[in-house]
Structures are given as C-alpha cells and as structure tokens.
C-alpha cells in the first residue's frame, strides 16, 4: 500500500457519495478489497462516512410517497415466485457431486463426516432437483477460459434453481461472489457466497424463467449491492 491515508480517505469520501468514476473508481475498488478490510483506521472511516451519507438523506424534505406505491409493493412482494430465502451455500464431496444425475445413488456415502444433517438435506435436494423431468444443466460461461465453469441446474415450472461450481477460486480478500439476475436492464441481487473446497452449491429461490440472464460478479463485501460489476461468469437464464 503506497497511498497515504489522506489519499485513501479522499477516495472513500467520494466512494460513499457514489461520485467516483474512471481511475478513481477502480482505485477505490482495489482499496475496498485489498486494504480497507485489514486497516482499522480505514474501516472506521468508511463506516462513519457511510453513516454521514445516510444522514445526508435526512436533509431532503420528507414526502409522503404516492398512495399507489405501497399497494404496488404488496403486489410485487409475491411476484416472481415465493419470497426467496438467503442463498444457501454448502460444500459437498467430489464423489457425491461427480455423479449428480445418476439415479439411485446413496448420498450419504460421499459426504464428509463433518457435514450436518441439514447439509445432507440440501445435497439431497440438489440431487432430487437434477433428476426432475426435464431438468437441465447449463454451463455458466466464464470470462476466463482457465476457470472451470459453474453449472446452472434448473427445471421447468420450478421457481428455484441451483448453481454448482467446482474448485472455484477464492475471490480476493474482502470480496465475495455475488449472484445477479437480470431482467431487461434491471438487475436483482440474489445473494452472495464464498466458495467451499471442492464443490460449491448455491441454492436460489428465484424462478430462473422470468430472468434473462444470470451474472456472477466479484464485489467488495462492504459495498451495498445495488448494481452488478463486470461478471466473472454469466449465462442466459
């Protein structure tokens, strides 16, 4: 780290205001992943600046939203399938996942001793899912040819799907993988995860059929997920 804290603080002030662009924005991204998570001074500055910017919102005159907004929200709360739960991420042993799609396998044989019953249930769910009639397994293309693809497992008429990745590289410190579902130009943040050893399985309670594509990005764990960065992986949904 060659930048002074003064310079870093300057970038953080611009970052929390969402006013950085170009090289400054790129520098801030690097700082947020490589420096800020490990620097108490910068962590504190970022947290307080975020509080200050949120307080700035109160300087605007509060206005009652249009009466139509809450009913519109109520309608949309139940749209596009049931309300999803947080992304469930779990690792499974290679011997188990390597045979996904083969009927009749005894799941418990390949599962590590440390895995819990709930993880077993999740794995069983993934197995069941892959065996559904018409279920498809589609590679989620990587922007890097050297990276193994993630596979999307979905089934017709089912408002949930799985992402399975093998030997996913860990994202840089302070960052996470984020899953975005794109409908037209509108991104929906679906959740974030960190890879597990061997296999990583992500369960998403969204209907993949109502989205145009899936993006997986690497983003700062500190950043509020509002719009996706450049994807590491992506696929048509």
């Amino acid at each position, binding site marked *: 780290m060659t930048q002074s804290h003064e310079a870093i*603080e*300057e970038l953080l*002030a*611009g970052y*929390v*205001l*969402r*006013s*950085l*662009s*170009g090289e*400054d924005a790129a520098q801030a991204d690097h700082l947020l992943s490589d420096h800020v998570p490990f620097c108490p001074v910068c962590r504190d500055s970022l*947290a*307080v*600046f*975020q*509080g*200050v*910017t*949120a*307080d*700035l*919102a*109160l*300087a*605007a*005159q*509060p*206005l*009652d*939203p*249009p009466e*139509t*907004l*809450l009913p*519109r*929200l*109520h309608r*949309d*709360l139940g749209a596009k399938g049931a*309300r*999803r739960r*947080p992304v469930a991420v779990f690792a499974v042993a290679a011997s188990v996942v390597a045979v996904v799609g083969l009927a009749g396998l005894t799941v418990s044989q390949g599962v590590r001793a440390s895995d819990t019953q709930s993880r077993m249930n999740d794995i069983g769910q993934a197995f069941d899912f892959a065996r559904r009639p018409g279920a498809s397994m589609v590679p989620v293309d990587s922007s890097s040819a050297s990276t193994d693809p993630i596979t999307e497992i979905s089934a017709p008429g089912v408002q949930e799907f799985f992402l399975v990745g093998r030997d996913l590289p860990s994202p840089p410190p302070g960052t996470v993988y984020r899953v975005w579902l794109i409908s037209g*130009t*509108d991104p*929906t*943040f*679906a*959740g974030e995860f960190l890879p597990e050893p061997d296999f990583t399985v992500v369960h998403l309670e969204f209907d993949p059929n109502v989205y145009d594509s899936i993006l997986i990005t690497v983003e700062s764990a*500190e950043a*509020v*997920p*509002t*719009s996706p960065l450049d994807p590491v992986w992506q696929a048509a949904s």
Partner: protein
Amino acid sequence: MHDPVLDDLELHRRLDAGDRGAFDELYRRYGPSAFGLAYRLTGQQVLAQDAVHDAFLALWRAPEAFDPARGAFRTFFLSLVHHKAVDTVRREERLRKRAERSANLEPVTGEDVAEGVVDKDFLGLRRQEVREALTTLSPEQRQVLEMAYFQGYTQAAIAQELGIPLGTVKTRTLAAMRKLRRVLYRED
C-alpha cells in the same frame, strides 16, 4: 420509550423471517424519507417512486444484505435508496431538468418538516441535527456535496461543471465529510 435502533433491528429480524407486517412498518418509518430523498435526486414523481419501489423490493428479497454488524439499519437502507436513485438519475439523464425542480429542492437550511409527514417524530431529531451540521460547511463545500449527493454528479463532472480542478473537488468533498463527521458523530 422505544429505542428506534433496536426497533429497527427487531423489524429487520421479522422481515428476514418473511413478516409482511414488519415490511409495512419499515415502509411507514422510512417511506417518507426515502421518497423525499429520491424525489430530490430525480426531480420526478415517477422516477422517485420507481427508485423507492426498487429499494424496498430489494430489501424484501434480500434482507440479509443488511448486516447489523456493519452499522444501523437506517444507514443501510437510506444508502440503498440513494444508490437506486443515483442509478435512476444517471439512467434517465435526458429526463432530468434541474431548472424545473420542485420546492423540495430549496436549500435545506431552515426548512421545516412538512406537516403530517408520518416519520416526523421518528427521524425528526436527527433530521434537525443534520440540517444544522450542514450550516457549518463553507458554501464551496456544500456545493460539491450537494452536486455529488443530491444531484448524482461524479466528481469529474462536478469539476467540469464548476470549471475547477478535480483535485479541488476531492479536497472540498473530504473536508465537508470530515466536518460533518465531527459534528454529527461528536468527533474531535
């Protein structure tokens, strides 16, 4: 006497469990502030409504995006609204007509909270503190903060608009943020 911060945490916990009543209560608490902010940024009812809609819907669909360890719910949610509104402004740049902004865009100092606004009691005290804190900034500092936060300008665009070096914009922004930090967070 309820503690609004603890109440927010409890409401978020219930929201995370799928409680629509908690969603409605958070909407009641934050809807006016969110809409006021979004309207100030976008200058248009429809765009403001879309931004607030998207923010509340994102909250409902991914409540775990708020981590209590990282700060107050108010900080998280109003930042989310701001981000949505800035995205909207930038996407709809061609629709923005700054000259036609409503009375909501008058200078913030000395404004009275609108009569009948439902969150008056909930956020009123902090709102007053923020407005007083803003009066401690120099006009130059307020200008860059206003353009960045309430108008969605990038620092580069501010420099261009004002005809000043980018470094000056950065310096003024940092000075403004530090001063607000000292005043609002009682830091020396």
